[in-house]
């Protein structure tokens, strides 16, 4: 059943998830900005009673951006890229179309319930896995539907060889499935005892074991949501947008299998100097350093894809977004291993350097790549050109400034904090009381909050640009480039 002319790809589900990406991006980042300002100015905690305190909002921020914004972006790009690299349209299979829509609606229901339950304080307290067991089951169903969609589409493919991006989507699917299932194992207490709230549960693991499983999950959810799935996107969008082939197939092979092999070992670096056995801490530390190789492998492959074509950076803001994303990926995957070295970790662990590290990765790498993906997809999904190239430029520089303010302030804050905690006077007594190490950080918290606010402003500009693009005049043929007309092809 080879079609006689070009395939008519069906982007209905991709479009839904693009809307979800923008919606959760705004919600998740806005809450992030609020809690950043709360740390600089604690009175902001009382705007909404118990529902507005830092403690309640923090899990909402992390879940909102990770599972709302980033995951929606991953789903949106899958429903776009999947069809194109497999040379098959979703409208050829009513079953897969149904699964795709079901996937979206169930996902939205679970997300809405998640927001409500986290506001209410229903939380297992495990970082990035706060949802209680009934919602965990919902998450698993959403994931299964995505799996059916991935392997279903692969099942009816016309292109026999799986493109690099697909390797990464498959790995995201399998990795997150495994991690999520094991970390969220818990016993619903009402079912066993007959007492209390029906949604309450108790973890299957206790103490040190619970922490091990939690950080095996916590670190590797970063791997398979923030890293693997985003590499899937850049391997498709950068060559498409620039018209350049991927620099090296061999390097992409090395980077992929290297990443799969090494990443899972690195979770132990969250537990340095804790009560987990020494050999595990050392493994976590060593493998984190080894992780530079596959990470930089991907990033260098991306940067070299632009070899001889660097002029495009000046002409096409989208290329700029993607190159900055790759650069921040390199930056963040160098910073991570440095933080995993035991002596550095002794200073930096528990300090603000850690949120700083997380955010240069997520804002710079994940955020920029997700927005670049949406900018590339919008003209093709909506059949309209992007509204304004200069707005993209403005957004780029505002957000880049925001990221720099964010990580620079958090570096200084983290190192200051770590040094003050360990400082002693000439008699060997602690030089500072704990509160001294807190109040000294207030200026940096202001800088961080302003940096976060700039990023959010940039995201609003992005939203406006996409909105204006969607409401523009429809094109009759596929757009020549994702970027505004007049850009080289």
């Amino acid at each position: 059943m080879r079609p006689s002319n070009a395939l008519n790809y069906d982007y209905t589900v991709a479009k839904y998830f693009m809307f979800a990406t923008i919606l959760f991006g705004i919600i998740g980042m806005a809450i992030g900005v609020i809690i950043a300002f709360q740390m600089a100015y604690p009175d902001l905690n009382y705007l909404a009673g118990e529902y507005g305190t830092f403690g309640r909002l923090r899990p909402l921020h992390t879940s909102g951006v990770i599972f709302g914004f980033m995951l929606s972006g991953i789903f949106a790009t899958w429903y776009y890229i999947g069809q194109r690299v497999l040379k098959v349209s979703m409208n050829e299979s009513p079953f897969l179309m149904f699964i795709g829509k079901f996937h979206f609606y169930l996902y939205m229901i679970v997300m809405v319930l998640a927001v409500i339950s986290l506001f209410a304080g229903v939380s297992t307290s495990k970082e990035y896995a706060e949802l209680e067991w009934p919602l965990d089951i919902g998450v698993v169903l959403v994931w299964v539907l995505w799996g059916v969609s991935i392997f279903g589409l692969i099942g009816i493919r016309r292109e026999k060889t799986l493109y690099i991006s697909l390797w990464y989507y498959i790995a995201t699917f399998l990795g997150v499935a495994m991690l999520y299932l094991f970390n969220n194992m818990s016993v619903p207490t009402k079912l066993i005892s007959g007492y209390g709230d029906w949604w309450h549960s108790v973890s299957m693991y206790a103490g040190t074991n619970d922490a091990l499983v939690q950080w095996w999950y916590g670190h590797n959810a970063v791997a398979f949501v923030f890293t693997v799935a985003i590499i899937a996107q850049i391997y498709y969008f950068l060559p498409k947008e620039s018209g350049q082939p991927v620099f090296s197939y061999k390097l992409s092979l090395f980077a992929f299998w290297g990443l799969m092999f090494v990443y899972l070992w690195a979770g132990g670096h969250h537990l340095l100097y804790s009560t987990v056995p020494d050999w595990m801490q050392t493994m976590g530390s060593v493998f984190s350093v080894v992780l530079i190789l596959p990470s930089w492998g991907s990033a260098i492959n991306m940067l070299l894809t632009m070899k001889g074509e660097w002029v495009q950076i000046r002409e096409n803001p989208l290329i700029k977004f993607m190159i900055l994303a790759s650069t921040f990926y390199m930056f963040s995957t160098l910073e991570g291993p440095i933080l995993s070295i035991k002596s550095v970790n002794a200073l930096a662990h528990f300090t603000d350097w850690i949120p700083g590290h997380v955010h240069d990765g997520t804002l710079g790498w994940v955020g920029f790549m997700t927005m670049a993906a949406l900018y590339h997809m919008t003209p093709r999904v909506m059949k309209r050109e992007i509204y304004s190239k200069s707005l993209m430029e403005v957004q780029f520089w505002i957000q880049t400034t925001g990221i720099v303010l964010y990580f620079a302030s958090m570096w200084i804050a983290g190192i200051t904090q770590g040094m003050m905690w360990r400082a002693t006077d000439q008699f060997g007594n602690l030089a500072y009381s704990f509160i001294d190490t807190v109040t000294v950080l207030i200026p940096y918290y202001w800088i961080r909050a302003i940096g976060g606010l700039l990023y959010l402003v940039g995201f609003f500009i992005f939203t406006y640009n996409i909105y204006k693009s969607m409401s523009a005049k429809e094109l009759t043929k596929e757009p020549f480039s994702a970027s505004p007309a007049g850009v080289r092809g």
Partner: protein
Amino acid sequence: MFSWLEKNPFFFAVAVFIVIAYAGIIEILPDFANRARPLEGIKPPTVLELAGKHIYMKDSCNACHTQMIRPFKSETDRYGMYSLSGEYAYDRPHLWGSKRTGPDLKRVGNYRTTDWHENHMLEPASVVPGSLMPAYKHMFKNNADIETAYGEALTTKKVFNVPYDMEGMPKLGTWEETQAIVKEQAQMIVDEMKNQEVKDAFARGEIREIVAIIAYLNSLK
């Protein structure tokens, strides 16, 4: 070999899964039996303390406070003896945390009192000038969920053999017995508090969240 894998999605997926799964098997499994052993003298939490722990989790206290003292002089000077694995044997889930915006609380029961916690939750800056912590005034209004805590304690006793009701361990008993035990422990805390509303509520048979969370914080030693 790789080009063959890239044409066979099933085997490709199997290969990926094997490559990512075994690190967990090697790193996590060997430790499970070993690290589950409680340290001598460590007891599971009473029902009131467990209800307090649930409030701690509900308001994500662990987002800003750790419960993991690292083996450095600066930390043992500040917080007390460094943490040992066996101390966490009944900690489901663990609350080690990953960020210290506030100090570590692993042994806070050794150096803070009921009275101090009460003032701190009501108005943090009144006891620690310059504190960034939000006030948790709603803990003085909401009732603690004792029944869910009882349900959890009973579940851990049945499923994980947590030694409630053993000699020298906290008593669980039936729901009626538990309510009496909880009331007794809560009475001691309420007596040390000054908030009249909490005292009046307790006289009516209601246990406010603040009472439970103070019981939990006092138990961290």
